[in-house]
């Protein structure tokens, strides 16, 4: 039995969290290679549908990263993000999927280190939770 190597999807907003990820790169901050970033303009453009889709198709965890509240390049964009995803978490919990497989966090363009911590912690979190049970479920 080889060690569980989770596949994780991350949505990063162009202005803060993606820039933060770049900064982490430029600063050569090392982190586990399980996270695959999709760049969007704003965390508020991430449809919860994407998260549900990804998880029910077997992705082990989904990260949504945006600007800090107040820093949003689009004024109050991330306010909606902050409303949607906690609810999405609850819904996951209601059908029996561990809500910790979805994480919402804020990373600014200046926070390379924070990006590293968020990624590292989330990956170890998911490793703890083990493979997404839905991988095995065949509908």
């Amino acid at each position, binding site marked *: 039995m080889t060690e569980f190597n989770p596949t994780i999807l991350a949505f990063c907003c162009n202005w803060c969290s993606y820039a933060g990820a770049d*900064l982490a790169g*430029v*600063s*050569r901050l090392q982190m586990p290679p399980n996270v695959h970033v999709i760049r969007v303009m704003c965390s508020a453009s991430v449809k919860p549908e994407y998260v549900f889709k990804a998880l029910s198709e077997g992705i082990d965890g989904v990260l949504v990263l945006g600007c800090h509240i107040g820093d949003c390049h689009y004024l109050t964009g991330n306010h909606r993000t902050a409303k949607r995803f906690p609810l999405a978490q609850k819904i996951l919990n209601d059908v029996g999927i561990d809500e910790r497989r979805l994480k919402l966090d804020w990373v600014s363009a200046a926070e390379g280190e924070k990006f590293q911590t968020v990624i590292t912690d989330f990956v170890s979190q998911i490793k703890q939770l083990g493979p997404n049970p839905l991988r095995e479920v065949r509908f």
Partner: protein
Amino acid sequence: MKEKVVVVGGGIAGIQAALDLGDMGFEVHLVEKTPSIGGHMAQLDKTFPTNDCSLCILSPKMIMCADHANITIHTYSEIESISGKFPKFKVKIKEKARYIDLSRCTGCGDCAVKCPVKVPSEYEEGLAKRKAIYIPFPQAVPRKVTIDAANCRMITQKKCGVCKKVCQAGAIDFDQKDKFVDIDASAIVIATGFEMMDMSQVPQFGYGVCKDVVTSLQFERILSASGPTGGHLVRPSDGTEPKNLAFIQCVGSRDAKTHVYCSSVCCMYATKESILAGEHAPNIKTTIFYMDMRAVGKNFQEFVIRAKRNYGVRYVQSRPAKVQPAKEGKGAFVSYEQKGSGGDVASEEFDMVVLCPALVPSASSAQLSQSIGLKLDPDGFLATPDFQNPVDSNMKGIIVCGFSSTPMDIPDSVTQASSAAARVADLISGGAC
């Protein structure tokens, strides 16, 4: 009919000035004496205080210049003469013969592979060899080869000509002559930048005597992934990784005997290079000998603190008197006065010593001042007498920016380049009154 502006110097300041002027709708002619634009910034591995990869941020701007509808780049070219005065300058540009038909050369480099002549590479600060026919560095703009006539056997001795044989594009032209281009320019921007001081002026620091004493720019190349050591931190004498490293600040600068002024950037690039050294060799012990740690820019202090905290860099406030060879020509002894010990002189051995020499105005600015009467300041930089317009030279319509006017770092040079663009536009539009 667009007004023409000539920008002299293809370093970061010249590039930015050209881009801004081009965007403002002027017809820009960017003149660079070497075969590629990019200047010293292209030689740097990283830039402080973010440690951005230097070429990664520079190369898009270089290519933007090449692509820009309003910008014509004249590389391997020099200003032959400037006559007339604002707003009607006559600028004669000498496009030195590079013995290459640029329209044909694909920059494949086959010729360079076959060329038998090896000479020290300027881009690698003499730490590596290049051929007599060469492309200075991978991201060069234009990415075309150049034959340096002084070293080419075909040109000097009429024998060889291998390059012509191997060139499938038929781009080699040994009969090429210098070409002159005349431009009626409304204004001229001078961004001739800096060069390293003549190290023979400071023999006490053992440069040229001890193999393992290098200049900061050489060290920058040693650190660079694309550099002569393939990004491995090794010392010249025996190719081993240095265990302890010394930086000596203010070599030949802040010194009445050589250059009185402060070069402004050395404290920070030394700090940067010490951090990079720490990343290459986690256990390396680095010492920086300094007079005043001039970390005055945005996040510079934090950068120095990071060097101390995360990379254990040791900052010693003392000015070393001399550097002497150590045994077997490896490493060197640095002797300096210890603070708080009644002036005892200590002598400490280092595997490698990096000198941070004075950065002096490039020779071109002196030539220009002679040929067209630009005033120089007491330190040899182009004078900017009008305090209200810090980029105006003593001659109306001739604007200076970047290091050629006074020592400054990259952001300040970029800013001044934009100021220069503004001044050009102001003068040409006739000013407020």
